[in-house]
């Protein structure tokens, strides 16, 4: 631990101010905070809430049902990030579909899904395009590659989401946000800066121990002034203007739409869908998918947990019917989900 980290650690452990609720809205933050044991440093007055920042966790059940339909009814090859393979839909997971013979490929990047499609021209290849502002450009880039290479058998099943609506929707549950560093690397900082005018505070945080300690210490220092604040605590990666090329790429391929968030319901203009010009690349249209109304386990409290209204241990399924080996809710599936993180790292 370097001197700066030690200083920030002392600021955090020595905090004696009023009660503060800090919400992290990035699943990778949730995971790293647990992995580094940072919660054990927090004094009683500081509460850290794991918000809806894991794209797997907020993806509705119906989305998995659509993917299962594509794999089993349309016999498409599904390319996906590994996290989604074990998320339960209404009737099972993609991993279970794979064991029944469906083609499900885990890829490191959407670009590899295009490569797969190019190498398997006889297979309809669908990439499961989930994620926030950080990840959406990588899917759009994949689409651009597919267009340039005339890879006709490649399409996207989109469930991309944007953070601004969630920031506003969750504002009453928190005193300050730990803004997601890599989302801000794409979007820039103008939005969180402007949110201070609506009374919403927060700091942009990086992901190393030193960066997370710096961000938390900054919140605890600034919160005492009792005035909305913003700070960029991840300047080595996040510029005020973000990544203009990535923003332009996404704008060229996608447009805002209303989107369902597991637990939060439908938030206006909180999602992205492919523009009409790319309808042939939109798996929903390409395969004329029927509308699906996914059914989650009614006892699952992922929704309340994602809003910071309940803790994982408050859910009747947590640790009993729902464990990382047999997840019921999405928050238990992903390593970045609040329930999974509590289950794996909590209880010390």
């Amino acid at each position, binding site marked *: 631990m370097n001197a700066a980290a030690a200083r920030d650690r002392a600021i955090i452990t020595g905090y004696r101010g009023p009660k503060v609720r800090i919400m992290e809205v990035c*699943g990778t933050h949730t995971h790293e905070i647990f992995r580094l044991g940072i919660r054990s440093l927090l004094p009683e007055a500081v509460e850290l809430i794991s918000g809806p920042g894991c794209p797997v966790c907020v993806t509705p059940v119906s989305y998995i049902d659509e993917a299962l339909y594509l794999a089993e009814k349309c016999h498409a090859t599904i390319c996906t990030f590994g996290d989604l393979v074990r998320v339960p839909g209404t009737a099972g997971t993609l991993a279970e579909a794979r064991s029944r013979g469906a083609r499900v490929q885990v890829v490191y990047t959407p670009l590899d899904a295009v490569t797969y499609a190019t190498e398997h021209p006889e297979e309809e290849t669908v990439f499961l395009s*989930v994620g926030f502002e950080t990840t959406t*450009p990588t899917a759009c880039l994949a689409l651009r590659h597919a267009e340039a290479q005339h890879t006709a058998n490649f399409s996207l099943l989109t469930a991309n989401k944007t953070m601004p609506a969630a920031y506003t929707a969750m504002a009453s549950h928190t005193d300050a946000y730990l803004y997601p560093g*890599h989302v801000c690397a794409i979007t820039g900082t103008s939005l969180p800066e402007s949110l201070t005018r609506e009374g919403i505070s927060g700091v942009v945080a*990086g992901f*190393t121990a030193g960066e997370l300690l710096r961000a938390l210490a900054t919140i605890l220092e600034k919160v005492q002034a009792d005035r909305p604040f913003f700070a960029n605590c991840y300047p*080595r990666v996040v510029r005020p203007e973000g*990544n203009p090329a*990535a923003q332009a790429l996404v704008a060229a391929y996608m447009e805002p739409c209303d989107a369902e968030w597991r637990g939060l319901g439908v938030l206006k203009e909180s999602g992205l869908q492919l523009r009409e010009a790319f309808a042939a690349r939109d798996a929903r249209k390409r395969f004329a998918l029927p509308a699906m109304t996914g059914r989650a386990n009614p006892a699952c409290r992922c929704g309340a947990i994602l809003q910071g209204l309940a803790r994982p241990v408050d859910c009747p399924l947590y640790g009993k019917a729902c464990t990382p080996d047999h997840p019921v809710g999405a928050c238990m599936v*992903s390593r970045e989900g609040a329930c999974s993180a509590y289950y794996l790292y909590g209880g010390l």
Partner: protein
Amino acid sequence: MCVGLPAKVVRIQDGMALVDASGARREVSAELLSDIDTGDYVMVHAGVAIAKITEDNEDEEVPE
């Protein structure tokens, strides 16, 4: 999901960059960054370089 990995650019060609993270190398897309050079550090997410890393006073410890 928003995991990023700092990596050093070894070579750039046709919009793709060969990057090195502690000796692990992979081709990633460099199409979203206009001003990167061999020797620069970039933040890699899902096979795409999404940001140039300016000063690197943090250690290279990587979130998984």
